[in-house]
């Protein structure tokens, strides 16, 4: 289709990528960590937010851990770099939960690091039995299918939890997660704040035929509630709304099947997820409350429930019991009583294998 008379400059030769893969961390690692790689002996926490690791060689490394907003502007990153250069030793790392860690070889440097971080507004903590940073997703800022925001929910919750981040006063670690859709990219948590859709998708029949690969969408439905249909003379899809479980799985491959709406997209709170193998096996989180409003910019209804659950756990759990282990001991009846939350038919699982979640015994608590 190009015009033969048009004179075009030869396109610049595109640069071929160097498939270098995962960078070698050794080039960036603190020299004391590099020297003692694989040769560590023990550690302790002199105070919340500070770790002291001792190597078999006798060398020591001190780590100061601080919370960040994860979605950082370059000015924030440079501020953290300035702190590391001025009062640290120029080496940092990040944790799985987006905390930043500053490593220094002597304890004398720790107080100045803490002071500089606090001065710049970065909370020092997130170690030991604290409430660490919430692992979260992208939300309205960047995701193409979000039911809510991520950074805003996390900012709101961490403002409330700040005092538990900078202390180590919980029975065990508390890992909180958020997810902006039911895919649950935020993962499992002691407390999980996840979008829960409450209505079947609303279908824009004028666009389905143009935008969606219909057999793919039909196959994506976990309960076979979607079938091809001709609507207003156009190829589209229809939903058996009695079957639909409102999971949203059809929405990513077919955006005209809008699962979100300002009113029907709700938030649910889940508890008792655990990644670690310590004591009990890893567990999934369990539903405790649904139908909380998606209420930006501060989500106060969610905050209230999170606070109730967290402090019921803090008040009653034994040292080293994670949220799920505490509930295993006291039982679900006591959990619902102590948190003041309602137990409903929706807590009875209906998915594949759900009978295994029921109490198949005469063990009861009163």
């Amino acid at each position: 289709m190009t015009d033969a008379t048009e004179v075009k400059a030869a396109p610049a030769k595109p640069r071929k990528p160097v498939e270098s893969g995962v960078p070698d961390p050794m080039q960036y690692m603190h020299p004391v960590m590099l020297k003692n790689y694989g040769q560590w002996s023990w550690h302790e926490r002199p105070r919340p937010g500070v770790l002291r690791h001792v190597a078999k060689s006798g060398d020591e490394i001190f780590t100061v851990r601080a919370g960040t907003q994860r979605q950082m502007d370059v000015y924030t990153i440079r501020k953290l770099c300035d702190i590391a250069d001025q009062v640290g030793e120029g080496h940092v790392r990040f944790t799985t939960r987006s905390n930043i860690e500053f490593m220094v070889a002597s304890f004398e440097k720790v107080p100045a690091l803490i002071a500089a971080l606090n001065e710049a507004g970065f909370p020092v903590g997130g170690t030991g039995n604290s409430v660490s940073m919430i692992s979260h997703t992208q939300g309205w800022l960047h995701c193409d299918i979000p039911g809510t925001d991520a950074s805003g929910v996390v900012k709101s919750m961490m403002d409330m939890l700040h005092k538990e981040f900078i202390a180590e006063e919980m029975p065990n670690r508390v890992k909180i997660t958020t997810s902006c859709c039911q895919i649950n990219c935020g993962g499992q948590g002691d407390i999980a704040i996840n979008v829960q859709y409450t209505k079947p998708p609303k279908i824009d029949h004028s666009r389905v035929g143009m935008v969606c690969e219909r057999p793919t969408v039909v196959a994506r439905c976990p309960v076979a509630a979607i079938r091809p249909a001709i609507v207003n003379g156009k190829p589209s899809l229809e939903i058996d709304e009695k079957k639909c479980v409102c999971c949203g799985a059809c929405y990513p491959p077919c955006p005209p099947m809008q699962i979100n709406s300002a009113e029907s997209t709700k938030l649910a709170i889940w508890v008792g997820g655990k990644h670690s193998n310590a004591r009990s096996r890893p567990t999934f989180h369990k539903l405790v409350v649904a139908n909380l409003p998606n209420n930006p910019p501060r989500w106060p209804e969610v905050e209230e429930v999170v606070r109730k659950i967290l402090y019921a756990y803090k008040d009653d759990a034994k040292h080293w019991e994670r949220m799920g282990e505490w509930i295993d001991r006291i039982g679900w009846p006591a959990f619902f009583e102590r948190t003041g939350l309602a137990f409903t038919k929706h807590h009875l699982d209906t998915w594949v294998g759900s009978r295994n979640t029921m109490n198949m015994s005469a063990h009861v608590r009163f």
Partner: protein
Amino acid sequence: MTEDLGKSPDKHATPRLDELESGPWPSFVTGLKRLRDSEDKPYAGMVNDLMGQLEHSYTERLGFWKGGTVSVFGYGGGIIPRFSEVAEKFPESKEFHTLRVMPPAGFHYTTEVLRQICEVWERHGSGLIAFHGQSGDIMLQGTTTDGCQKAFDELNEMGFDLGGAGPALRTSMSCVGAARCEMSCYDEARALRTVINDNLGEMHRPALPYKFKFKFSGCPNDCVNAIHRSDFAVIGTWRDEMKVDQTEVKAYVAEKGRKYTIDHVISMCPTRALSLNDDDTLDVDNKSCVRCMHCINVMHKALAPGEDRGASILIGGKRSLKVGDLMGTMIKPFVKLETEEDYQALKDFGREVIDFFADNALEHERIGETLDRIGLPAFIEALGIDPDPNMVRHPRTSSYVRTDDFTEEAEKYFVRKGLRPDGKAQAAE
């Protein structure tokens, strides 16, 4: 917030986002405003419109991004394309793509390299970076289609490479591990780089049925959440006896008290493998220990993993979509990870599993779903892995299975265990 009083009228009002500037936690909104107000920078207008769109989302309670197809030359993945559905209102952020960039294993950085990344992203992007995404990527958030190539070229020259997106091998994560942790049971960074860097074709040219994730944790504390969140979880463990320093055990009991030690260490052992002796030393039944880590975590000066270290491999973890959450299942209770050959063997096994996934999974099926569909026996037979009682919580409870080759299978077990084929006689010895 008072700084807003002087802002120029073309900046979008963001009353809802402004409420996220108060409170003690660092505010991403304040950070976005710093970018928006950098009027000498190319991204100021883009971030202004980004904030306008985000405020619009906070008002309407809906998202306004759609996906698309954007890549850099030579690669088919690694960019998350975002096009605005409300670009007529917010034109400068109509394209707001993310580059997923693989971090150094263990997330170690110098300030020098962080500053270099910032410079690249000021030249070619929005100035907004997340350390890190849930798959472990450095997420450079917000650039145009043109900016993707420019930013990638510069980052690639610095030694960074794009991560995974779409139906492909994904970016991996490893814990801090051997770099700073006494619980580390193998070289996590080496394992990650050995496995991932030999399979980059699967990452950069997406052709798998769906995503495939490896994660590497140095011990069963699983600090990178591998069992829940990866298709192929490598979890450090050990085969011999845990190490006990009885002097330190006594010191712990003296400090914490006997009742505390019994209630919070001994009684919390999930398999009753611990006992406190009358002289306040510790008795460990290592055959019953399941390597859960609790006692080592709590008494970390007194207790440590054993010397015969390596890893367990669990396969099939994933998040909800679409059959529900699945955890990884124990497939290899122990692989030694010490020599170069050991790491190559891990890489080879990873490759075999990827190949099996590519050949056998249905479209949009994770390998955990494939396992559920075909059953574990078919999977381990295909990969030449022997059945092992560590694979189950308990043997089957359903009688609906054809067992006419049970005796032959039992003989294979006795041969593997080094017992005579007629295991009865051996058992009597």
